[in-house]
């Protein structure tokens, strides 16, 4: 599931769908369902690899998940709902994705990952104010959650709150620096945060701050925003 989410974030739709399909096919609860739906599994898999366009593959996997959800209508499986939420994100059906994540959150209200996913879905679906609320919930539960802070910054930009956006990006960068992580995924994330920060600063019409961002001068920027930590 986590793999599917990462693949979605990096825009690899086909691979994300495959990961989601694999999840459901190997899941003890739904394995049987997946097998019967697909008919003879090996030929179906071959077919989907060769001929299916990405959109028909996507709806195939979506139908699988929807069927699985219909199987037990009274019990909500948060992981299944997460999978559905991711699929609806891929197909840009953001409102349905919101419903899926809300259902998952009803079962696991302290899951900050879910709150972030809800927020991101809302943001991508142009509901930035609600997205901010969702991110705030996630950060209340897990203040060091960098991805959510980054997302919050993006929603601030969408809402025109450029100072707040910059402030959030700087907090995220500062947290990253403190963790001293050398992981590649964190380096990539760092690059994304700097890029987003530059965009926010460019909207503030303060060229010296923009220059500082270009130079990577985090300390100067932290002082400029009164964020000395």
């Amino acid at each position, binding site marked *: 599931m986590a793999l599917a989410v990462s693949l979605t974030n990096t825009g690899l739709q086909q691979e994300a769908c495959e990961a989601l399909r694999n999840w459901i096919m190997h899941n003890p609860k739904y394995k049987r369902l997946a097998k019967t739906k697909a008919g003879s599994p090996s030929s179906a898999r071959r077919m989907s690899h060769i001929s299916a366009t990405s959109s028909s593959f996507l709806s195939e996997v979506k139908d699988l998940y929807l069927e699985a959800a219909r199987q037990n209508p009274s019990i909500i499986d948060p992981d299944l709902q997460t999978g559905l939420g*991711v699929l609806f994100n891929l197909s840009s059906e953001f409102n349905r994705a919101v419903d899926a994540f809300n259902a998952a959150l009803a079962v696991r209200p302290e899951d900050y990952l879910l709150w*972030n*996913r809800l927020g991101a*879905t809302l943001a991508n679906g142009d509901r930035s104010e609600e*997205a901010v609320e969702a991110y705030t919930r996630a950060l209340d539960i897990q203040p060091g959650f960098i*991805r959510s802070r980054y997302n919050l910054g*993006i929603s601030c*930009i969408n809402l025109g709150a450029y100072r707040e956006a910059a402030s959030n990006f700087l907090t995220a960068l500062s947290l990253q620096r403190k963790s001293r992580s050398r992981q590649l995924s964190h380096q990539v994330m760092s690059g994304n945060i700097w*890029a987003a920060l530059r*965009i926010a600063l460019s909207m503030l019409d303060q060229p010296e701050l923009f220059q500082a961002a270009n130079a990577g001068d985090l300390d100067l920027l932290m002082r400029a925003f009164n964020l000395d930590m």
Partner: protein
Amino acid sequence: MTNEYYSCRVRFEPAEGSSMLKSFGRAQSRPHDSEISNGRSPIRGHCRSNVAQDVHQSIARLTPTYTTHRMLAKMQRLPSQRHKRVGTLVSLISGMHKELVKRKQLRTSLLHTKMDHNMRIAVIGAGVIGLSSALCIHDRYHSKVTPLSIDVYADRFTPLTTSDGAAGLWQPYLYDNGNTQETCGWFNTALMIEGKSYLPWLMDRLTERGVKFHQKKIASFREVDAPWLKHFIITHNSKTGVYSTPYIIPGSRSVTVGGIFQVGNWSEDNNSEDHRKVWEEGCHLVPSLKNARILDDWTGLRPVRSSVRLDSETLQFGDKQCEVIHNYGHGGYGLTIHWGCALEAANLFGKILEKKKLTTHSRL
């Protein structure tokens, strides 16, 4: 004439010697023009360091690309030999385009990945500003944003636009909230961007790239056939403002004699009084003009603003949003600064793209 005025001598081809200077010197003799009648170049006399500084600043203000600063800085450091300056300025200008484009591409390198959103751009106005902005944006972004469709809307296309009518002398001047000051005498040769040749070229480039055009809205001057005129002559009157006293600018096929600059006059009809004034003053300046055959009259508008507006704005129409990039108010110097403005418009477009890219990229 009793008014004081500066005389500017600018030449399109490299200096051929002082014989041409002498012929100009004979036409008139004024206190300021003593250098001309001596047959020496008037340019050196007028080129004071504080004038160069003003020009430096005015170009910085009008052409929002700092490479122009460097061009001027290079010029100031050049030895005061006339010929060297001529050659270098011409090659600096031709190199300028490439430099500017290169620098802008380096700076706007945040956009890494292709965006698969349908981006529709409408350009309003098909004069030099509209067409050059369209070309610049298409040039830089058509490979990064697919599909990128550009539609140009205008009530007039070449050869009916103001840009076509403009003589197109490339000469920046200081325009500071209504006070205009000609900064002149600082270069020996000048470029001319002839609107009526340039615009069709721009239209061809845009058509090649699939841009669509749709038709859907002052300087008074005359086109003359006077092929013996080889020099640009501009006069300035600091009291009545720019381009209100005679100028004579040879083009590729005919010579333009002008002009007027009447703030608040919205009429585009040829006015016989203005016509007479322009012609008489032109002939006074260059008597041989009397023998020229008048080809055409033209009157146009110079839409001007206290300063050029070049920024972006989000407009709301009901539940829809639209990003607008403004690029207007160039008055009498549109051809001069159009390319810098077009590049800046493309930069603004890039910023909008980045914002849009972010808006659909929150991470689950």
